């Protein structure tokens, strides 16, 4: 992984960073690179309430905020920004306001790398709108001063249309941090981990490949 000046991570939901990106974030932090994580919402509309329910619609964001902070602490992120938008409404916000929000952060932080979702290939409307806002902000910059854009894509057609990911980060050295980050988002991930043992994460080749390799597509401007 190249050494970066500053990494800006922009996702809409607490836990969006956990599965596909937390190993990459942890590696940058270990390299001494400052990382800013701008999380647009608190995942207020999450659906996992448990059976029997452990929380309700109104208390879920309080839980997810704590989980997000805990995950950031595990990763060593010193600049965690909660942007105050609401889950499932990101695409309905004013596009120019969204672009400006990202542009201001880019001006302030001067990142050499931005990590976000690949618009068109990231399934959830909030993911799409977040990625699109980042792309618009970067597109406004002169081509020579743009930061690198590494995008997460996972729609069913992403490989067919984008080709294979051009960036694959092996994060095995920090896999333990990544697993602890995934677990920190307990309200969202506990059910999933009920079926995976500690042993699996060290010996099951399929699970290890899933945990250890983080895939990104460099955004292609048209």
């Amino acid at each position: 992984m190249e050494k970066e000046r500053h990494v800006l991570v922009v996702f809409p939901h607490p836990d969006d960073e956990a599965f596909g990106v937390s190993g990459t974030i942890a590696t940058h932090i270990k390299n001494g690179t400052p990382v800013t994580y701008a999380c647009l919402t608190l995942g207020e509309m999450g659906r996992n309430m448990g059976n029997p329910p452990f929380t309700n619609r109104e208390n879920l964001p309080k839980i997810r905020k704590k989980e997000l902070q805990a995950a950031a602490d595990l990763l060593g992120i010193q600049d965690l920004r909660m942007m105050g938008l609401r889950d499932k409404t990101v695409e309905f916000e004013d596009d120019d306001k969204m672009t400006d929000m990202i542009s201001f952060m880019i001006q302030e932080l001067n990142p050499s790398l931005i990590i976000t979702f690949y618009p068109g290939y990231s399934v959830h409307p909030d993911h799409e709108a977040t990625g699109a806002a980042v792309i618009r902000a970067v597109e406004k910059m002169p081509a020579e001063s743009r930061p690198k854009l590494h995008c997460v894509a996972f729609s069913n057609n992403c490989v067919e249309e984008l080709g294979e990911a051009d960036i694959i980060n092996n994060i095995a050295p920090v896999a333990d941090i990544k697993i602890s980050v995934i677990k920190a988002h307990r309200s969202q991930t506990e059910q999933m981990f009920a079926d995976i043992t500690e042993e699996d994460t060290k010996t099951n080749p399929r699970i290890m490949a899933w945990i250890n390799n983080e895939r990104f597509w460099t955004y292609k401007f048209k």
Partner: protein
Amino acid sequence: MEPVVVQKVQEAINQRANQDVYIHLETTNGAYASHNDETFFSSGAYIRNALVRYELGKITGDGPYRVGLKIELGWVYAEGITHFEIDEQNRLLMAGHDFKGKLAVALEISNTPFE
């Protein structure tokens, strides 16, 4: 939240009738429903902080339950309610959870705006 006790929910609905209340109403299949199953038609609706006044409200059914509120010029309705709670702010929170504990519907009634 606890499983619906019809009498308790009905009392709570009655206590909030004939006054200005804020409503949160949502239904959802989750944002990944069509991603996980491309034959699935995903839909949902959501309204937060609708200010209404209902003259009559009822919980019916054998569980999962239905809740309807008759407002001045129309209706508010939710189906699939399984759980309820009266929270520390005296709000009546009702929700329907599927077998995996995922929220599918919510109807909440509050005397003050939701955050």
